């Protein structure tokens, strides 16, 4: 089989407008006859559900949390990019496009990225109109800052809570539609299977997390906006509930999974403190705008930071990358932290940490300004570590934060299962092998507000869908499948808790498929994952029953899926014999230790198909063409 990305031909500047014109419209009077199922209520899901409701479709929206406002988009701190050029510093749609393709290390699809840059300006307008309280200058204009590797100030922000404010904007738009009756919300419902009829996505099976009841919902198209799979590492900056189940089970029903090994390690997280640790907390990388990163020059230097004189400190990012300094992209910053810690120069009790120091910034700008910029982040750091970052440098270490891989989608965000659309972090489309800071919020809202509402219309207008009901064998089979998984998990009653398995899985994936990878390690990891998976299905202990709120049962199902996904990540990482972005294969690096791409052989998207547990997945490649941004070695020197 081959993959048709449906990328429009012709000049890239006109591609999206042309596509919008070429797409068929659904007659306004007919829209209410279509039933659309949206799974997930984060930036992508809530904005999609709200916009589809406004257009007049009949929408059902599902989330596993108690309210759509809890989705993990809420935790994004730093900001959202838009090519407004309000600062007159030379930004443009083309520059944002260029930066994103380059930042993604030439593993993203140009047409998608260009559209994202184009739409970025509409997102800001939309969010302002909704009342998102973006930071303002004294004249009342929108304020900007530069963020994570960008040389222009194009990031819009709402203190350190940009994700929260954008999500609440989308959530409020969604609630407005719920009130209007165009969207029906189903909180505390978890999607556990996809219903495919005549080759098209026609419904989902969900479990009501309060009553335990299994129910099927049928529709004309299914939209997954269920986020990323970073929790495969157990310790991550994701919310505890973030999981891969919806996209993984859709994968098992035929949706190809693209670039699963492209995961992003965020350089500025609070280091691990003990075995009980349940998650890692990110400190926004906007901190790198003013903080300086350093470690002691000598290995094993145990002096407290204030006792280490300037001459005995190594500001290693400023030294190695004089033009970008502390603002190098995330993958570069993370890998360099690992290099200095591996060399024994790490700080803190575990030696797995580097300093992020604000002493110079406080001297230069004064504490009040630093407080205004980062006050809530400093407070958060203080709450968790008990240390005051105004006085002592912060300690930070990289942690898994975002997954660029996800279900494969074409230019219109449709997966390889017709009628199944995938938005936001759940798809693979826009960030290539590495995502730039402040681009996740942009993509989620672009997909949800401005792309899907058009493309789903074209699908509905051009597809003849048969009327179906719940007695179809495909529906019964999916329900039976979900019930069987639940019963099997509950019946084992073994000796190990779900969390202990999850923790062990996470350590394998982090050690062998984390910040750096090599062939021998990946092969070893695949073996270990298979063994662990067998042990899980033999010895896991899921207490309680399936008839009421059972958080252990919910988690067990998610961990079971992570166990399968982890193997695919390693297979993908092993297959890609090059280093690019967040995927660093130790065998492929330059003499200076930078990632060495192999464009001749690996300039493709790896889209994997499921062939059943124990059978190797099948690989189909989508070749990437770069007409506008010519692949070059990334250099931030």
């Amino acid at each position, binding site marked *: 089989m081959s993959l048709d990305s449906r990328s429009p031909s012709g000049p890239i500047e006109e591609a999206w407008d042309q596509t919008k014109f070429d797409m068929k419209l659904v007659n306004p009077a007919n829209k209410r006859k279509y039933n659309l199922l949206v799974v997930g209520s984060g930036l992508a899901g809530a*904005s999609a559900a*709200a*916009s589809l409701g*406004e257009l007049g479709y009949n929408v059902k929206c599902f989330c596993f*949390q*108690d*309210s*759509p*406002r809890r989705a*993990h988009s*809420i*935790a994004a701190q730093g900001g959202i990019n838009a090519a*407004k050029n*309000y600062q007159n510093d030379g930004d443009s749609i083309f520059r944002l496009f260029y930066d994103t393709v380059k930042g993604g290390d030439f593993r993203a699809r140009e047409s998608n990225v260009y559209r994202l840059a184009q739409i970025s300006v509409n997102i800001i*307008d*939309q969010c*302002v*109109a*909704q009342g998102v*309280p*973006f*930071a*303002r200058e004294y*004249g*009342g*204009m*929108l304020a900007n800052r530069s963020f994570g590797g960008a040389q222009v100030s194009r990031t819009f922000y*709402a203190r350190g*809570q940009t994700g*929260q*404010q954008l999500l*609440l904007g989308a959530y409020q*738009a969604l*609630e*407005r539609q*719920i*009130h209007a009756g165009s969207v029906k*919300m189903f*909180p505390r419902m978890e999607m556990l299977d996809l219903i495919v009829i005549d080759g098209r996505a026609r419904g989902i099976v969900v479990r009501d997390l*309060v009553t335990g009841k299994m129910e099927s919902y049928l529709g004309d198209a299914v939209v997954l906006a269920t986020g990323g799979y970073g929790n495969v590492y157990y310790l991550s900056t994701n*919310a*505890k509930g973030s999981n891969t189940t919806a996209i993984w089970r859709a994968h098992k029903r035929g949706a190809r999974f693209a670039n699963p090994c492209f995961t992003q390690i965020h350089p500025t997280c609070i280091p691990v403190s*003990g075995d*009980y*640790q*349940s998650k890692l907390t990110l400190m926004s990388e906007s901190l790198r705008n003013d903080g300086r990163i350093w470690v002691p020059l000598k290995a094993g230097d145990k002096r407290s930071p204030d006792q280490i004189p300037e001459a005995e400190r190594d500001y290693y990012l400023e030294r190695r990358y004089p033009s970008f300094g502390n603002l190098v992209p995330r993958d570069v910053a993370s890998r360099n932290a690992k290099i200095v810690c591996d060399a024994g120069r790490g700080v803190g009790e575990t030696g797995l940490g580097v300093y992020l120091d604000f002493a110079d910034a406080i001297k230069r700008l004064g504490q009040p300004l630093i407080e205004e910029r980062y006050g809530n982040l400093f407070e*958060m750091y203080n*709450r*968790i570590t*008990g240390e005051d970052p105004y006085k002592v440098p912060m300690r930070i270490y990289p942690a898994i934060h975002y997954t660029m891989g996800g279900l494969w989608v074409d230019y219109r965000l449709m997966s390889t299962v017709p009628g199944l659309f995938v938005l936001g972090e759940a798809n693979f489309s826009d960030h290539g092998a590495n995502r730039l800071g402040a681009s996740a919020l942009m993509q989620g809202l672009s997909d949800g*507000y*401005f792309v899907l*509402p058009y493309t789903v219309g074209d699908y509905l207008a051009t597809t003849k869908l048969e009327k179906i009901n719940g007695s179809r064998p495909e529906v019964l089979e999916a329900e039976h499948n979900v019930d069987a998984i639940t019963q099997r998990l509950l019946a084992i009653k073994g000796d190990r*808790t779900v*969390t202990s398995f999850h923790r062990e899985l996470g350590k394998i994936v982090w050690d062998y498929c984390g910040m750096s990878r090599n062939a021998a390690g990946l092969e070893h990891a695949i073996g270990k994952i298979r063994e662990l998976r067998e042990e899980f299905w033999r010895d896991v*202990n899921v*207490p309680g029953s399936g008839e*009421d*709120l059972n958080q*252990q049962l919910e988690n067990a199902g998610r961990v079971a899926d992570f166990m399968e996904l982890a193997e695919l990540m390693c297979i993908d990482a092993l297959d890609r014999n090059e280093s690019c972005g967040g995927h660093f294969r130790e065998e492929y690096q330059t003499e200076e230790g930078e990632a060495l791409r192999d464009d001749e052989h690996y300039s493709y998207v790896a889209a994997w198909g499921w062939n059943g547990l124990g059978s190797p997945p099948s690989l189909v490649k989508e070749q990437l063409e770069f007409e506008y941004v010519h692949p070059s070695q990334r250099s931030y020197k």
Partner: protein
Amino acid sequence: MNLTLHVWRQKNAAAKGGMTRYEAKDVSPDMSFLEMLDVVNEGLIAKGEEPIAFEHDCREGICGSCGFMINGVAHGPQRGTTVCQLHMRHYRDGDVLFLEPWRATAFPVIKDLVVDRRPFDRIIAAGGYISASTGSARDGNTILVPKQAADKAMDAAACIGCGACVAACPNAAAALFTGAKITHLNILPQGAPERYSRARSMVGQMNAEGFGQCTNIGLCEAVCPKEIKLEVINKMNRDYLVGVLA
């Protein structure tokens, strides 16, 4: 350190609940409160008992999922802090802690420490938005917002919808929550056209959900993890009054 916990256990909404005693051993001061409960739960599962159900997700103090009463105080003793961000270094060896769910007629218990907070969503649905359908917006900088207004709006918009304000209030009023959203939107020029109707509808819904009336006690402000100020309630009352009279 070792702690004694008395935890509210209730199988489901219909069942009768009660306090059960547990010992939390070898608690590290660097653990978060929820990590301490994780460890207790792992122990319960190993013994074949059902773990304590509590709500949580981001564990960074922003999603608003978590929250319960610790010794009668919503989110526990540290000001401006959700229970997921509360760390055990604030406790001493031998402490005895009583954990209970939010108590309010409008927030029925679902299980153990988990309650149903859907009334909050319905208050937002009644008017907690600016009617700006996708695609209709003009350039962002055509609407000037004075910095002071943007800052005040942001202060109010920081609400995470956790419900601590309701749980702390002797009247189980939702005035701080509702007032925060009304203040956020009504202070901004974009929110002006729907200002009074918004206050009227949201307050109407708040009353219909069975929350009590605000009598200016101020416990809500004291426990709010985002330190939302009581003045949002003044703003709500003022706009509501105009909304009903006009």
